[in-house]
């Protein structure tokens, strides 16, 4: 059964091919509806990260998501945080205080409403998804000489505006 040491059995791999898309979509669904229902950027990001972790667990090191995308993930991680800060600072140019909702708010209970909040949710999703996946990679595929503890500490900042 264990002829190749990469990932789990064929059954798991086959099922994963179907479920991973559902999990990813569910994460994005949670993020998009963050301002209407429970969920939002953090939960959506977690579920998105879980879909990638799922793939990693099922397919092992040789899976479709390569372990060498670390720099890209770091960039994604930081750009999420920078996007959040950027939207916060953009309110200055509208003459409002930091993190003000300067976009038109739309109608209550509409999908496209609530001004900047969906964009902030998207920023948080980027940040959390990348950071959780990075933590998983750092702890799971632990390489010698790499510092595992550096990426996750910046995760707390994005919630401070709330």
């Amino acid at each position: 059964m264990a002829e190749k040491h990469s990932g789990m059995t064929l059954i798991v791999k086959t099922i994963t091919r179907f479920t991973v898309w559902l999990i990813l979509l569910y994460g994005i669904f949670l993020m998009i509806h963050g301002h209407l229902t429970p969920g939002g950027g953090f939960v959506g990001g977690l579920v998105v990260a879980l879909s990638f972790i799922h793939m990693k667990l099922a397919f092992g090191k040789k899976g479709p998501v390569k372990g060498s995308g670390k720099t890209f993930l770091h960039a994604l991680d930081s750009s999420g945080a920078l996007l959040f800060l950027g939207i916060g600072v953009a309110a200055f140019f509208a003459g409002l205080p930091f993190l003000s909702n300067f976009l038109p708010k739309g109608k209550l209970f509409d999908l496209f409403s609530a001004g900047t909040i969906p964009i902030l949710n998207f920023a948080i999703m980027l940040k959390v998804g990348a950071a959780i996946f990075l933590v998983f990679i750092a702890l799971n595929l632990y390489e010698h000489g790499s510092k595992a503890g550096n990426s996750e500490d910046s995760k707390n900042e994005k919630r401070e505006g709330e």
Partner: protein
Amino acid sequence: MIASYFVIIPLLSGFVLAMSGKRNKFAELVALITTSLLLFLSVLLFPLINASGTIFYQLSGWKVPYTISLVVDNLSAFVLFLVSLVAFFSTLYSIGYMRRFSSLSNYYGLLMLLIAGLNGVTITGDLFNLFVFMEVSLIATYALVAFQGEAEHYEAAFKYAILGSISSTLILFGIGCVYSATSSLTLMQISIKSAETPVLYLAYGFFLTGFGLKASMFPFHSWLPDAHPSAPSPVSAMLSGVLIKVLGAYAMIRVFFMVFQKSSLVLETLLVFGAITMVVGAIMAFGQNDIKRMLGFSSVSQMGYIIFALGLGTPLGILGAIYHMLNHAVLKGTLFLDAGAIEMSEGTRDLEKMTGKSDQTVYVSTLMASMGISGVPPFGGFFSKLVIIMAAIYSGKYIYALIALAVSVITLTYYLKMLKKAFPSTGDAKIPSSMKSVLIIMSLLTLITAILFIPSIREVTLDKVVDCVTNREVYSQLFMAGGN
């Protein structure tokens, strides 16, 4: 608007640095620009507050009970200046000191997060936001303590992180108690409402334990001499110089003196445990051979002075505490930076193995800072200790004054021991010029802080801070007036 820059700028540069990968020169440049900008802005705050009163800034376009506010009064501006000063010199020193490590952008990124957290704690007007920023700075600190990557650094960081998470949990419990008693998290509103409900003793206990752990008060002091020496020297200077003061002493002043009503029970606890802390720290420091570990115990002892002076509760005691915060930040910052320079030229931190290779500049600045911290007259440290002892005498606590005096003598003894062992002869090991210039400026600052004791200068600087602490009404009236 200027208040929010103190958090936005370091966060921005922190995340830019986290993205920047292996570009070391770029990382140094960004960090230096950020910290010097923050120093400039924090100096700019004083005339602004003088001209237009306390800066009160509400985030996200809502009004105050429903949003997070940033409040920069005289106390906050003072502590902000302290943080920015030590942060600037630490960054400048890091350029010469940290070159031997790889992944410098991670280091500077974490340092920027630490500064963002400290600034946030200082300027926030919301109890829960204080907790969040505290965690931001603490998590950056845990990673920085483990940065050098030897076995004992991980051990120290683990110990620190576990104790830190216990104290954070206690503080969160306290926040829950306060919220259930006053149904508000805005500090100014709590200070109005807590006048009506003085029964918050449970929250007092939680906050006293939590902030006491962060200020390394006596039963909880054991993490500090492990954690602070394990960090790289510039970070040690940040930790001992400002982090324990902001998270411990400043948070205590803000919560116990300005938000809650003055409670004699809390003051008594601070007085007794502060006195024990300074004695225990001094005695433990006496037996140390590791130079940075000795400085760590010395920090415990000096924090004991600050907590003790706060426990006196009189305006003179608060003046002493605030003045000693400034002096200790400068002095301990200098001493840790000196220790880094000594370690660099000797190759060891063990006092017994030192052969006196260090530079003349290092010797002079260590001498000045040691004299300052043990309270020898022309330096700032003497005057702040004088104020504390005078405050103890004026409030009739003669025995405590005697203890403070005795601890000061013990401090002098172990610093003399350190000087004798570390500098038997004058060597000529070269250190980078950026480090040297920082040491020279910092050791000049140990003299300059003494100027603040002159009454006419004290009136426009320190006395304003003390006024800000003692006038609770002014703080709570901010809430009534509203801002922006």
